[in-house]
Structure formats: C-alpha cells, structure tokens
C-alpha cells in the first residue's frame, strides 16, 4: 500500500517534471529558433560530409553513389600503408609539425621581453608592429617567400652575395634542406607577435605591489621575470601546450601547397597535400576518391587519439584539461 503510493507519487513527480520540461521548451521556442540556423548549416556542411567518409570503406564509383557502391572493407587503409609514399608523407607531416612545435617557446619569451619594456609608448609600438604580419594572407606570405628567396634576383640571394656569404645564387625553394626552415621560420615571423597577446594579458594581472616588494628586497629584474612572471603565465602555457600537441598531425594544406615546387616535393608532400594530389589535383579522375577519404580518416583518427592522450595526461598531471 505504502509502496504503491510511493510509486504513484514518484511517477506523478516524473510526469510533472516532464510536463515542466515541455513547458520550459515551449517557453524558450524563440531561443531555439535563434540557434536553429547554425545547427542546420553545421548539419549540412559538417555532419553530412562526416557521413560521406563511409566511402573510405567502399569501392566508390560516382555512378553508383555512396550508398550503391560495394563495400570494400579495410583495403583502402592497407593499400595506404603499402603506398610507396606512405613513409615519406608520414615522416614529412610529423617532421614539419614537430619543427613548428619547437617554435612554441618563442612567443612566450617575446611576451616576457615586451612586458619588461618600461616605456609605454614604445611597448604599444612594438606590439602593433609585431601583430601586423598576422594579417597578411597566406598567399601573400608565400608569394613573398617565393620572391625573396628566388634564385633569380631574389632579395636573400642578393644580400648574401653582396656580403660575400655565397658566390652564386641558391635556389632556396628547390632545396630539400631549406623547405622546413622556410615553412617554419616564416610561420614564426607571422605568428610570434600575435602569439604574445594571451601571455601579455596574463602578465598584466601580476600585481605591481608584488614586483615592487620583490625589488625592495633586492631581487634583480631577471629574478622578477624568473620567479614572478614565468610562474604567473605557467597555467596558460600548459593549456596552449595541450592544444598544440593535439594538432601534431595537422599540418595544414594551404601553406605547404603554396610553397611546393617540383624539386622540393619529396620533403614537402604531406598528408593533406597528398590527398589533394591524388584526387582533385589529378584532373577529373574520381578513381582515388575512396582511397583519399581513407587517408583523411586515418589522419583524423590519429589526431583524435593524440588529443585524447594529451588531454588525459594533462588532467592527471597538470589538473587542467580541455574537456
């Protein structure tokens, strides 16, 4: 008796809760309407292609469509592991990415340096100038690299010859050694200033009293940087580090592609450019669409795994995590 009444009251409560939820949902229908358009666009342009990835497991022909094409199992993946370019593009992707990763400390150091500038006007000026390259488009940056490092009347060759470092022009963009440096150091040039913003915002929170107290106690400028400023930005540094590690296999298409020349191909062919090269870059052929979807999926999978791993580690060790 008692039990059943409790049950009915529980059921009633659940029903009432449900009713309330429905009421709340009804009440906020206008808010749902506001959030609906991006849900739709995201569904179309993100989730549908996500479904399209199934062609990685099919022998795709456009005539039969995604659904009609026969299943292929995992053979596109095993084909990729046997691809003559497999090790080359994997190594190129990892190498370029790791080199970029090594640039990680530079914005931090630069932010600490800017923070030590005592003249406010000069500080503003330095910040403004250093952010500027961030706004130059990838195409223009790559064009500038092509022009400055050109074997024929390029600025860099002209300067190096004028001061006698080299006696004949170097074809930097045709060099297998120079590609990594051109790619990464131009990225540093473009991104170092912009990268300081988040650290400078953190450094602005350091209490001036703390620094003054330390100075009165005889701390040198260097000691203030080392013992106050660096510990202040450390949590941000860790979060940025996690984000960076997660993208280790995410060498973007654009800049690599724009810096590619026939002669540096063996060091500049990365996963993203290879999938293009085999499909849209190869004229109208659709022969390798399924294959390149498999490569793309492989890439996504590795990235996801890396993010999960770093996130787990950082949650355990650093007590900060993304999700």
């Amino acid at each position: 008796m008692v039990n059943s009444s409790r049950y009915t009251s529980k059921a009633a409560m659940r029903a009432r809760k449900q009713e309330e939820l429905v009421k709340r949902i009804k009440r906020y229908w206008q808010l749902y309407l506001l959030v609906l358009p991006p849900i739709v666009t995201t569904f179309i342009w993100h989730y549908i292609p996500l479904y399209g990835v199934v062609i990685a497991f099919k022998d795709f022909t456009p005539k039969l469509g995604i659904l009609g094409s026969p299943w292929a199992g995992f053979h596109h993946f095993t084909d990729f592991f046997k691809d003559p370019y497999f090790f080359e593009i994997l190594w190129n992707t990892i190498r370029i990415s790791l080199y970029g990763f090594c640039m990680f400390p530079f914005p931090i150091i630069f932010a600490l340096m800017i923070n030590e500038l005592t003249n406010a006007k000069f500080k503003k000026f330095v910040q403004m100038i250093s952010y500027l390259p961030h706004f130059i488009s990838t195409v223009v940056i790559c064009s500038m690299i092509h022009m400055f490092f050109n074997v024929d009347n390029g600025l860099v060759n002209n300067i190096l010859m004028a001061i006698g470092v080299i006696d004949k022009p170097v074809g930097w963009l045709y060099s297998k050694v120079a590609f990594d440096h051109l790619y990464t150091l131009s990225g540093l040039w473009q991104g170092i200033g912009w990268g300081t913003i988040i650290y400078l915002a953190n450094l602005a929170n350091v209490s001036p009293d703390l620094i003054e107290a330390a100075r009165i106690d005889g701390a040198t400028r260097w000691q203030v940087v080392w013992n106050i400023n660096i510990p202040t930005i450390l949590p941000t540094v860790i979060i940025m580090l996690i984000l960076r590690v997660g993208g280790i296999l995410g060498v973007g298409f654009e800049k690599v592609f724009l810096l590619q020349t026939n002669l540096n191909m063996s060091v500049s062919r990365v996963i993203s450019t290879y999938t293009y090269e085999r499909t849209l870059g190869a004229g109208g052929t659709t022969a390798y669409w399924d294959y390149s979807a498999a490569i793309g999926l492989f890439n996504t999978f590795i990235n996801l795994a890396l993010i999960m791993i770093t996130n787990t580690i950082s949650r355990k060790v650093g007590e900060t995590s993304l999700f």
Partner: protein
Amino acid sequence: MSSVTVDAKGRKKKSTAIKRSFGDVVFDVINITLICIMLVLFIYPIWYTIAVSFAEPAEAAAGTVYFWPKKTTIDAYAKVFETKSIWISYANTALYTVAHTLYVLALTIPSAYALSKKQLPGRVAITYYFFVTMFLSGGLIPSYMLNKSLGLVNSRWIMILGMGVSYSNLVITRSYFQTSIPNEVYESAYIDGATEFQTFIKIAMPLAGAIIAVQTLYAATGTWNSWYSAFIYITDQNKWPLQLRLREILIQGQTQSLDFQLMTTEEQEEIQRQAFMVYTMKYAIIFIASAPMIAMYPFVQKHFVKGVMIGSVKG
C-alpha cells in the same frame, strides 16, 4: 670634508633606491636591443616590398634596391590599375567578404546569445554538437561531393555559404553575452513581459557592439585572405577572388594574365622597361592586395586583441 662625503653618500644611497642598478641597465639594454632587432625583422620585408614596388624597373631588375630606390616611379601601379583581371578579382573578393561576413554574423550572434541562457534546456547537448566539429571532419573529398551535389561547384555561393559558425567563435561570443550583460537586466525585461526575441533585439544587441565588431573583423579578414575554397571549387576565372589571382600571378608566375600589352612604341628601351616592370608590378600587386588590411589595421587592432582576451576567459 667628511660631512661632504657623508652628504654624498647619503645622496648616493637615496638615489640607488630610485635609480636603476647597473644590472638593470644591462638588462634593459639587452632587452631593447633584441626587440629592436626583431622590429627590423618585422618591418623590413614589408618595407622592401613597398620600396621595390616604387622602383624604376631597371633598378629593381638589377637587384640593387635594398632600402629605397634611387629613382622612383608609380608606373608599376599604373599598370596594375590597368589590369582588368585583378580588378575583377578585387571586386569579387569585396563582394564575398561583405556577404560572407553578414552570413557569419547572422549565424553566430543570435545562436551564441541563445546558448548564453543557462536556463535553456538542451543547451549542453547543442554546445557539444558544435564542439565535435573541432575534432572530426569529413575531409576534402566528402566535402567536395556534398558541395557538388548542392550545385555549389564553380558557383559564387560557395564563397558565401557554408557552416558559417566555428566552435571557438561561438564560445567567445557566448561568454561575452554571459559576462558583459548582467542577468538582472534580462530579468526585469521578462517581468515587463518581453519575449526572447525582444530581449535579444532590444537589450542584448545594443550592448553587443564590441563583440559584433570583433566577429565582423575576424570574419572579414578571414574571407579577404581566404584562398582554399576558391582554389578547390571555382574554375571560372571571372568568379575568382583576389587571393587566387594573386597566386596565379605571383607564385605560378603567370604574368600573361596581367594583360600585358606591349605598347606600339618601337623603342627597344621601352619594351625592355616593360619587361622589367613585370617584376616591380608583382610587388605593387602585393601592396595593393594588402592595402585595405593595412589601412584598416591601426584602427581595428584593439578589437582583434579584445577578441583574443574574451576567448581566453574560460566560458
């Protein structure tokens, strides 16, 4: 005698408390020197580009311009201005930038506002729905297949439509609404019988100027500088945006698309000069392509920085 030294000592002591020690001076000198070197590295490539664009073609071709040409001319600019294909792409980019920016704003601002409401049922699930897009994507071919079936290949719409929202922009905008507009303002509006639409338009929007500025600038610079989707999807040169044209001229070296008309003049020198001018024109094109950005930059710089700041507040 002794009193003087005491006096001097006293003064000296006093001044060390205010004045910087020798170590501090060394610190500053090293720091400022390094920063000045970096400033030169930031400015010089840009400066050099401008310098060559104004150089007399022969001087530029000889490779002797380092800081400023001995003889300047604006002929390279004049020639670029005559080049129709560049202006077509310039106009296209302007159109794409305005349209796509509006599209992004229309999608991002209202939805971020809705997601800023903590009482909205399903808010977390919707947020995850967008969050997933950061880590999973279909990749080149599945996207291409979709856009092809939508009839967007080789259409101007591909430069305007699309997902239009990114998770990070949504979060930035959402946390702006959450932190900068106190909840009491909304509550009093609700009590007065305002609907959600009314509170959004009459309360949130007028207070959202800062975030709208940030999002506008991000979207506009992004579209102005974008190259990839046009490269993948647009083959019709009349629909090309500027960046695609730039790549053709500057990287692939397709200088014939400069509509390079050799004048009827018989003089060998003039022909030679025009041939050299292709080189300075490249630099002029870079400057022209980046000019709107650079002109706008000093005024809007602080908004960009603000965007990064809002984003760094964990929402």
